[in-house]
């Protein structure tokens, strides 16, 4: 099926199977920052933004993305670099496999939430798992990224 998706601002046309998932289409076309993890929408490493909103691309049919805009981490390089620096500062970086998906969700969260509490941040990120379980240091870095004011 002919499917047109604007990926990182560039209109791409693909021939996809009706039961093909977005993560597979993206990886087939060399968007390797989009990782394949659990493949059941439980881990969040496949997160991309669809029209600015985080979705699990392993559970989203590619045909559904026809006519929509998809963002991978490459398109938010500046923000991701800033987040990576904060991760480094807080000792939050381990294997890095979850980073692209997490960076995109954090990016969307920053646009959506103003002045989030610790609990708001944890709740928003519950679908992005870190297999090295570096949650505490990640949380510190993300809080700094969100510019959360300490009360």
């Amino acid at each position: 099926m002919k499917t047109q998706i604007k990926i990182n601002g560039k209109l791409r046309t693909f021939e996809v199977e009706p039961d093909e998932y977005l993560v597979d289409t993206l990886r087939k076309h060399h968007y390797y920052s989009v990782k394949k993890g659990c493949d059941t929408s439980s881990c969040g490493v496949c997160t991309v933004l669809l029209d600015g909103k985080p979705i699990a691309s392993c559970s989203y049919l590619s045909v559904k993305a026809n006519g929509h805009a998809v963002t991978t981490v490459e398109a938010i390089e500046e923000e991701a670099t800033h987040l990576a620096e904060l991760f480094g500062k807080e000792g939050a970086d381990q294997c890095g496999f979850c980073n692209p998906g997490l960076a995109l969700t954090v990016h969307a969260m920053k646009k959506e939430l103003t002045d989030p509490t610790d609990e708001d941040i944890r709740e928003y990120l519950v679908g992005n798992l870190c297999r090295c379980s570096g949650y505490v240091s990640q949380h510190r870095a993300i809080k700094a990224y969100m510019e959360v004011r300490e009360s």
Partner: protein
Amino acid sequence: MKIEAYTVPTDLEEAYQLLQKEDAGIIAGGAWLKLLPKTLVHGIDLSGLKLDTINETEENYTIGSMVTLRQIETHSSLRTYMGGVLQEAISHIMGVPIRNIATIGGTVAGRYGFSDLLTPLLALRANLVFYKKGQITLESYLKEAPKEKDILLQVIIKKEYGKANYTTVKKTANDFPILNVSVMKIGTHFRVAVGARPSVATLATKTMAYLNESKALTEEVIEKAAAIAVEEIKFGSNARGSKAYRTQLCKVLVERGIKEVAYENTN
């Protein structure tokens, strides 16, 4: 899941006629379907039918079946309706990336025993609008699996004013619930719904009748109500919890729920 042919109809009748074919099925968000060992000869995507909006009037919320869970939990007024009971239930469903895909239509039509959302929807006495069958209550839909293939168009919630509670017990934030309970108090009337028993959510009708007939809400009455709930509701065992554990949980959650909503109205 395998899909042989994929259609995005823009006409309801066309979608309905296609659905009547053998091995034809509706695709909403498609997130749950993905996990099923199923072949759809005709996959019918409802995205072209404009079912993805929430309309609010003085009397009702009308939620299109293709509205995502995230749309509900971020909707300007639905999110806080009845003390935010729907938002609270949805916030326990996986993470934002899946809640941006999963729809209310897929949730209702799936009739999942593990559902977080069906329990408060039941207590809110939600109504469903199907293309051919017309309007039916969620309660009757959950009681009996429909025989005919039909398209769910809308979920209607009549606006009421009262206090609501939702409690779920999960082993981890991303897991299915072991049990969940929603208690509401509308005026002087209580409603109690119990889900993830592990079968699909149900209203505790005898418990509700007992509470509504009681003159004063004493500790004893609340305890007795919880005892009636565990007597009238059927529980089962699965990998997440035993029947005995669910029975104990239910008693505690119903008691706490009643106490939480008993005293004053939130909106």
